[in-house]
């Protein structure tokens, strides 16, 4: 009897502690707060964690140099659990309770589609997305109606990425018959639509349109169907785990069809899990961290390794988050911390030197909320554990190895010559 009363009391006490924690007043506003809500747990966690780390490094850099207008920056992070409703709630909380003046976008396109109208109509705080790529996130209702659009992006966007992938495969590599292999979850679905559209625009026949599911551990049936249909190139939209299954199934059935993937595979996690089965996979991305790099990037990488160890989970997002924080700092230094002013100023930045790209043009304009465009994207090739940028010359596509050797890519198998 005593035991159960005690336990009941304890359970209720724990609850009460949580209530008190929540009711505690928000900290006084002696810092400038930037918010980020995204998946920090669950299957998409590596994206959120990568963004968080990139932003943390940038915040500390800026604070070490005295902050913005004499105030320190502070990053407030929430775990959206890959759930749009949670993300929307957390955006409200970040803005209204924490008083953040700028935001980094989430990790899931659906989340950002859900929150975009709320940011535009109610919260009116700018957000810049480093990761989510559905085209409509930035080209939302407000954008279409010409109202103030608070949603920006500093990463891949669906239309651009698909155009880039298809152009590469069809125009630069010269494949005639394409096959799609996409993930049935959100990102894969939009990618599938965009890729189909671009193939149609280029009048390239789509001979197979296969999908895979989160629970598919063996993708050989799909690959066999593609092979039977005579696909010369496979275009993929998906994430690491499923793609390890894809390259493994390719190995299993001895399939050598060239494999082009969207930026879900632009992360070392792919090589760690897939090993050298990933050799030769081509990935579209905004940035590769391997191979010869400019000094600013190397500096950033060093800081990252010191702080978080050698594994970088989501390279493009981590770099982008770093740039976004600097972008905000630059803007706020100029116009202060009013979110509306920040938003307006973002559309009028003449130039910006980021790690991902050195912008010599306005980063955003009123009609263009995607900082990076098709021509800014790069193709990477997984080469012995490194994602090396693919360059082109008269002889064709090639990569430059660490020792400076130039190796050309065989278009039939994507092997190095």
């Amino acid at each position, binding site marked *: 009897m005593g035991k159960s009363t005690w336990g009941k009391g304890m359970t209720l006490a724990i609850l009460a502690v949580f209530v008190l924690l929540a009711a505690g007043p928000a900290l006084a506003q002696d810092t400038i707060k930037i918010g980020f809500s995204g998946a920090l747990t669950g299957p998409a966690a*590596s994206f959120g964690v990568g963004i968080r780390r990139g932003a943390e490094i940038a915040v500390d850099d800026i604070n070490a140099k005295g902050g913005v207008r004499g105030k320190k920056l502070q990053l407030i992070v929430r775990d959206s659990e890959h759930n749009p409703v949670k993300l929307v709630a957390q955006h409200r909380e970040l803005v209204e309770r924490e008083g953040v003046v700028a935001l980094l976008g989430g990790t899931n396109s659906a989340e950002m589609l859900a929150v975009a109208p709320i940011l535009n109509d109610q919260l009116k705080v700018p957000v810049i997305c480093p990761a989510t790529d559905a085209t409509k996130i930035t080209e939302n209702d407000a954008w279409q109606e010409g109202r103030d659009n608070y949603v920006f992006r500093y990463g891949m966007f669906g239309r651009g990425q698909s155009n880039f992938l298809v152009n590469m495969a069809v125009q630069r590599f010269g494949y005639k018959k394409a096959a799609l292999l996409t993930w*049935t979850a959100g990102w894969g679905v939009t990618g599938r639509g965009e890729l189909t559209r671009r193939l149609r625009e280029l009048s390239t026949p789509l001979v197979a349109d296969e999908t895979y599911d989160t629970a598919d551990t063996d993708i050989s049936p799909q690959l066999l169907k593609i092979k039977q249909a005579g696909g010369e190139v496979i275009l993929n939209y998906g994430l690491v785990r499923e793609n390890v299954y894809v390259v493994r199934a390719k190995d299993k059935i001895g399939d050598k069809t060239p494999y082009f993937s969207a930026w879900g595979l632009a992360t070392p996690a792919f090589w760690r899990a897939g090993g050298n089965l990933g050799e030769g996979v081509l990935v579209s991305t905004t940035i590769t961290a391997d191979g010869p790099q400019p000094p600013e990037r190397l500096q950033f990488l060093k800081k990252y390794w010191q702080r978080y160890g050698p594994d970088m989970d989501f390279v493009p997002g981590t770099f982008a988050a770093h740039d976004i924080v600097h972008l905000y700092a630059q803007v706020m230094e100029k116009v202060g911390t009013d979110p509306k002013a920040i938003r307006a100023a973002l559309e009028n930045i003449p130039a910006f030197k980021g790690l991902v790209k050195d912008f010599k043009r306005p980063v955003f304009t009123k009609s263009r909320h995607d900082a990076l465009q098709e021509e800014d994207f790069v193709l990477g090739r997984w080469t012995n554990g490194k994602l090396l940028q693919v360059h082109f010359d008269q002889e064709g596509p090639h990569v430059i190895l660490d020792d400076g050797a130039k190796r050309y890519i065989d278009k039939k198998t994507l092997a190095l010559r």
Partner: protein
Amino acid sequence: MRFLVQIVLSGIATGAIYGLVAVGYSVTYATMRVLNFGLGMWVMLGAMVGYTLHVTFGLNVLIAMLGMMTVLGGLGLLAERFTVLPFVRAGSDVWIMSTLAVGLLFINAAELLWGRNPLAIPPFLGKDPINFAGIGIYPQEILIVIVACAVMVALDVFYQYTLLGKAFRATASSTEVAGLMGINTRRIASLAYALAGCLAGFAGLLVAPVTLAEPQMGTILGLKAFAIAIIGGLEAGRGIFVCGLLYGVLEGLLSGYLYTGIRDIIGFTLMILVLFVRPNGLFGRRAEERA
């Protein structure tokens, strides 16, 4: 034809794992009318602990397997004692929630201990696929099927020919009468729970070289295995394993000939229909409230 053979072979490999995990459900249900609803997470934990022992510590795979099963068995005994027994004693069925809660703990613990990215465990036999007549299969997949069948046979031998196995079946038949025989039924219940955990972990480590090891790997696998255990009829071990194989092949055929997205829709609808026609599963028996 090549296509068909390929997907059937792949289906059998997947199905063997489903079957192995599903049998874990029946081990506890048959002895004490309890299901470990978080069993999928035990699969994951088996893969993770196996990764540490085999890859990180570089132990031989058999030793790693034994070590992992010792760890999971111990956890199983603890979990039974603290999260199942109190509720079973109280005669309530909230163990559905408590076993699920333990599963949640495992996911979180795994994320903290092993990170969130998929971990690769090298195949036990060799990583090059075997090719014949254009059909490919990994040695690991063959190993999975053979070992899963072997485990089923071993389990059968245990149940049929060992004294302890007979005591398990006796406890399943009637805890009360088994107690009258001097069988420590309390201990049997704990052992059954631990055995189920071991089986799940074993399946996890066995399958990890093919599926990768990561904190979420058990969620869907556990649910599907549960579905299979139900279709098979919770108490019929062999029936469940056969169901697992069939379900694996069915999945392969569905994604091969229709498309992947529709696989679970058809599979689970079929399961509802099976239960509609046979409320206690394909191989189960009826039970009624007595007047």
